[in-house]
């Protein structure tokens, strides 16, 4: 089964990547930070810090510590968070909910804005729609994410208190963050939709279809769309990946308890088991998403499927 083969190859790559990256992070933290102090706290007396150092085994050589952790992972034990004193798996499960919800609603925002805009721009190049779409893209690209978040808070949570300022406990908490996070990938997706569709519309087979008598929406829907979707699927996969691992800024501006924040906090606190597990998770997500995009594309495009 060749597809299985392919998937295996990718899995192997993912494994290698995960190992490399996680060892890199491990070394980085080993040489630069003192997790014991964070665990003990700012004002902790020295005996306490020392006790913790020994108790957690931070005094062992790096390879021993790393292999110890790795051994645990291989047995399905992702360890105990130093800082939260909880099983990492549980910690991640808890935070993942927020991030998943946020990422998918942001993706929905992106799709709802970018696709219609991109499609209408491509159908009438150089028209006002096109210009509008392009200027939207250019400006959206230039607004820093965190700043947009702050402005939205000033506007819609304080001046006009429509939405809550922060938190993640109800759907209303997700509106502004999803908007911010979604807006960040609008330019890329919109432009890609536009150029992709323009390319397709300028292609020989669309000319053939027109010569056969296709026009209007039928031309788009029945002939162009599937081809134009190919690049979009890939870019959406990448964007979703970015959102799942990279909503750091949004989560911090809106104080949401997602994976991004968890990652940041764990870094700041040298919570190595959590950092490591998160990185494994991110690598896995990335690989899975790109794999999924490849498979979807293969399903959409017989050329990829069969060569």
């Amino acid at each position, binding site marked *: 089964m060749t597809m299985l083969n392919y998937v295996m190859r990718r899995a192997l790559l993912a494994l290698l990547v995960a190992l490399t990256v996680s060892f890199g992070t491990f070394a980085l933290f080993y040489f630069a930070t003192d997790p014991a102090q964070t665990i003990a706290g700012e004002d902790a007396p020295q005996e306490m810090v020392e006790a913790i150092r020994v108790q957690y085994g931070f005094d062992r050589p790096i390879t021993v510590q790393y292999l110890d952790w790795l051994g645990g992972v291989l047995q399905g034990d992702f360890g105990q968070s130093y800082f939260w004193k909880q099983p990492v798996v549980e910690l991640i499960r808890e935070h993942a909910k927020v991030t998943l919800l946020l990422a998918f609603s942001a993706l929905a925002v992106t799709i709802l804005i970018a696709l219609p805009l991109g499609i209408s721009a491509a159908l009438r190049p150089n028209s006002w729609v096109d210009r509008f779409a392009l200027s939207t893209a250019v400006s959206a690209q230039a607004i820093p994410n965190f700043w947009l978040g702050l402005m939205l808070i000033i506007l819609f949570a304080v001046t006009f208190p429509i939405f809550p300022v922060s938190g993640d406990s109800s759907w209303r908490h997700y509106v502004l963050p999803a908007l911010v996070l979604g807006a960040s990938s609008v330019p890329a997706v919109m432009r890609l939709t536009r150029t992709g569709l323009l390319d397709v519309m300028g292609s020989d087979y669309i000319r053939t279809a027109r010569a056969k008598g296709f026009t209007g929406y039928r031309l788009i829907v029945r002939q162009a769309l599937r081809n134009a979707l190919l690049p979009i699927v890939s870019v959406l996969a990448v964007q979703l990946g970015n959102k799942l691992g990279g909503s750091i800024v949004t989560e911090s501006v809106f104080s949401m308890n997602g994976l991004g924040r968890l990652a940041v906090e764990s870094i700041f606190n040298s919570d190595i088991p959590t950092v490591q597990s998160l990185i494994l998770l991110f690598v896995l997500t990335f690989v899975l998403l790109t794999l999924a995009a490849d498979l979807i594309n293969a399903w959409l495009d*017989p050329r990829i499927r*069969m060569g």
Partner: protein
Amino acid sequence: MSTESLLEIRDLSVTLPTDSSELRAVRGVSLDLRRGETLGIVGESGSGKSMTALALMNLLPPAARRQAAGIHFGDADLATLGEKELAGRVRGRRIGMIFQEPMTSLNPVYTIGRQLIETMTIHGGTSVAAARRRAIELLEKVGLPDPASRLKQYPHEMSGGQRQRVMIAMALMNEPELLIADEPTTALDVTIQAQILHLLSELQRELGMAMILITHDLGVVSRAADRIAVMYAGDIVETGTTEAVLSAPRHPYTQGLLECVPGYREASARRLGSIPGIVPSMTGEIRGCAFAARCPRAVPRCHQEDPPRRPVAAGQSDGAARSFVCHDPEETRGRGFAGGDTATGPAIRRGGDSVLRVDDASCTFSVRRGLFGKRKPLRALDRVSLDIRKGEVLALVGESGCGKTTLTRTIMGLQTPDAGTVTLAGRPLGEQPARQRARLIQPIFQDPYSSLNPRQTIGDLIRRPLVINRLGDAREQRARVHRMMDYVGLPSRVFNSFPDQLSGGQRQRAAIARALILDPEIVICDEPTSALDVSVQAQILNLLLDLRDELDLTYLFVTHDLSVVRHLADRVAVMYLGEIVECGPGEQVLNRPKHPYTRALLDSALSIEPALGVPAPDLAGDFPNPMNRPSGCPFHPRCPLADQRCRQRVPATETLDGTLVKCWKADTPPPSAPLDVRPDHNNKEDAAP
């Protein structure tokens, strides 16, 4: 063929906006077409042929604007019909269209079946089942075996020839009254070209369609068209019956075009005629005759006044049938084109010592197909042996993908063979340093657009070999470049220009200058003219032959154009699927071919013979995929003579009449008569009324 008029185009113009000004791609074209008739439109690249065809059904690029006094198609005026009516009633229904690029003209993500069926169902009134039956029927008709299973295939699973057949079937689904074929065979191999053209004329006759056949190949129109329209710079400069136009061209451009075709004049004329200059850019207003700048007969009036349309009424029932657009100045009548000096043609040379030997060279690539595919070996060269002798022109012919380029790359040391050796000047190539090799052997490539680095000026480009080989100081190098540019006929003002600023012909001259500046012994020309228009091709061929004489060069000339081979080759080697199947002296191979494949190639080549029709090819099928080579003789699946032995055992190389042949049947006489007494395949009894 009836005399009822089907299509009347009056004063059709197409303009396209460009960065700075407007490009007038079509300038006031008027054309008539009768039911069942085939009209050939010929002209060089960029003359506006495609734009004319697209303008008929308004399939122009979005920015283009179309104007016409009228496009009367039967009872409808296509010039005034809205997009909706055009789409609903005309496109695909009454007018079918086939495009040049079969590789990209089918939607890659849908099956052939879906694309065929929707052609009918979109216009309503037909059930899917009926459309499906029709699709199967038509696929059968266009010669695709096992049509029902073909419906499930995707375009990329088919070869170019097969796709073009699908395109034809698609265009015919609704039995259109008019079929427009825009260069339907240009991208295909000669053998396939002949098959497709033959198929088209058969179908046309059977269905009684009219057809507009657009091409730049005079050989193709001469065989396939009833009438011919010659386009130049967006206008039709001469029209008439094929026979009349080709045998007695009246417009200087038509004359020039014909002079350029190798083999149009007697084979003894080793020097081709050529039209100087290039097709003008069609931006802005053109004053006077568009051709005047390149015309040997031009007088001052030609540059100032628009030339009149002159009917040639001599004994025609239909006055519009033959005309040309020219001032036709009396005083210059009979003045021909530059290449008229037949006397200086080079003599055929033979003998000389072997300067390059290829012994049993094999070359295998490993190719992955598709995302999930495994790597598979692709054998591009299979134990090829060849030798090139001092001073000769060795032509290497074969269909696309047979390994010609791989062989030349191996010879130049750019590709290391898996097995076998290449011996250059008595030493194995592998043992020679690259620079030493470079001074013995130099290439000229097919595509003058990709063979010159767009980021270097022409001067730097030509000088580069000297720099790399550290020959002379900067001043000497520059002087040598100037001398070389002189040699190849490049004006020295282009020294500081970039390749983008040059025409195709000029670029090819620059490439030649670059190849020759190291003073090599052997020049490898990989299809050096196939990307060029005929008029430019003639210039380059002439130049190459002149240079050979002056610099005492040896050429390995790769081509698939047999008329070019006939024109200049001393010896010919024929390749098929990575093997050399026949190799021998030019006249021997071309006039008395031993291998059935050589014979088929020669049969398929279309020379300008208005009296003949498109021959029925006796070569079955397509060029096979080199990934799965047939057993035994690789040619056997397509060979009309193949028997059990051919299927099982690889033929050995043997020598017959000084020709090397690799065929079990080399001594069997051909089933059909030799080329020159070939029976008339002409199906057009009424070619010239």
